[in-house]
């Protein structure tokens, strides 16, 4: 080790912070270098002087003042936590959150349906959709661009189950569009400009509609998608008993159950439930027995069983 390197290592050497090999090299050099020996002695003395610097003591109030600050901070921290998620309530809160999300998901799934619901819609009798009137006018030209975009979307998909129904379907759609355009006009301030916007709006109206629709008015297709339980069918038949028997049989064949069948003020009232997917079939079966109105008209998109109420009266 040369002189310069050894001089630089003296500080470490005094701290015993050099490797054994270095130590030996330094010591070898020290034996032959008087100035390095002096430098080492001076360095040792200097460190001795530095170590004589006395510590100051903390003031007696130091700990308590620090802890006052810390307590303040701890309180702030805990109150912050308590505000948003108290430890005791946290599991309950997650439970509520999960239930809420699930409920919203189910609601959305059941209520937001694609436009195909038009196709699935069963025939409504004349009472619900005055076909004659509509035919005179012909399919009303859609008052808004949005609606004309909507038509080609819906029509090709429509699989006409029966000829009679095609015309009625058309009528229903026209009515729906009238209703929609009326609503659109009411909302003229912000008319939707794109198809997506319209669809979203229809859905929105479906959700808002149930209370808004007056019971007297024929149900608009937009409102049909969300049936208020139970489904109510009002049938006019000459032989109410025969019609009741027929309907009860049909309910059973569709996999449903009849809960009660009673006579009240000359009317037969049948209560029961059928699988939601069979509601259209039931509607057709009842419709084939005579003039019938369905409130709301079934859409066939719900899961599970739906309650039904059939009122049969003689004309």
């Amino acid at each position, binding site marked *: 080790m040369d002189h310069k390197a050894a001089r630089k290592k003296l500080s470490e050497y005094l701290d015993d912070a050099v490797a054994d090999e270095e130590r030996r090299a330094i010591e070898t050099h020290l034996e032959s270098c008087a100035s390095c020996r002096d430098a080492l002695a001076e360095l040792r003395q200097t460190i001795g002087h530095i170590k004589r610097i006395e510590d100051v003591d903390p003031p007696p109030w130091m700990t308590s003042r620090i802890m006052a600050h*810390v307590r303040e901070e701890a309180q702030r921290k805990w109150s912050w936590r308590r505000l948003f998620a108290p430890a005791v309530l946290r599991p309950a809160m997650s439970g509520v959150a999960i239930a809420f999300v699930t409920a919203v998901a189910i609601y959305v799934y059941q209520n937001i349906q694609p436009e195909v619901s038009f196709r699935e819609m069963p025939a409504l009798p004349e009472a619900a959709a005055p076909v004659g009137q509509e035919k005179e006018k012909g399919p009303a030209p859609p008052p808004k661009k949005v609606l004309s975009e909507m038509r080609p979307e819906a029509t090709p998909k429509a699989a006409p189950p029966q000829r009679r129904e095609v015309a009625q379907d058309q009528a229903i759609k026209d009515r729906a569009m009238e209703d929609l355009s009326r609503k659109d006009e009411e909302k003229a301030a912000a008319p939707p400009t794109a198809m997506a916007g319209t669809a979203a709006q229809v859905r929105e109206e479906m959700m808002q509609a149930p209370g808004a629709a007056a019971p007297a008015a024929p149900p608009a297709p937009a409102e049909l998608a969300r049936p208020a339980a139970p489904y109510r069918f009002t049938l006019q038949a000459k032989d109410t008993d025969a019609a009741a028997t027929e309907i009860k049989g049909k309910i059973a064949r569709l996999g449903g159950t009849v809960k009660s069948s009673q006579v009240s003020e000359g009317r037969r009232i049948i209560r029961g439930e059928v699988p939601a997917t069979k509601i259209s079939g039931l509607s057709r079966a009842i419709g084939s027995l005579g003039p019938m109105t369905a409130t709301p008209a079934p859409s066939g998109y719900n899961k599970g069983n739906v309650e039904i109420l059939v009122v049969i009266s003689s004309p």
Partner: protein
Amino acid sequence: MDEQKTTGVDSDAGLVASALQGDLSAFEALVRRHQKKMLNVAYQITRDYDEACEVVQEAFLSAYKNLKRFRAEAKVSTWLVAIAINCARNRRRQIASRRARMPLSLDAPIRIGEGDLMRDPPSNDPSALERIEEEELRRLVQRCIDALDADFKEVLILRDIQDFSYEEIGEALALRGGTVKSRLSRAREAVKDCLQKTMGGL
């Protein structure tokens, strides 16, 4: 550094764990155990007792707020001192910027050799040598330490006044081992030169 306190509930790490669970008395134990060392490091950096007290309070509050960030493999004492040094540096900077706004700087760094090691070197007064009393010697040593540039001073304080190991100094100041060694060596040499100049010998 109390080696017997490195394990068990009473160890620094155990106290940190308890404090994290909300046990404030555990944190208070940490304060009592480490405040003096932190105060003295801060005092050597700021050279103002009141400022140093402020630094220690600030450092402990900061440590409490960041308790979660404390890494278990680190030493609590080193971690706390590192926080105190950071707080002290910030205060020193504030003081310096306050002074910088004054028209005349009376203690601008004086270049000596490699880098700015010295600031305001004491005057050469050889007559003092034999008659310096203990108190006076300490005062002179302190002046020589004060004259060191901050980076060198911090290493010297931690090693020669607070007895930190080279590793602990590296950890507290975020420096590599080689840097710690060379800074310490140069700081000691500078103090030696300063004392020789002041007292005419050692």
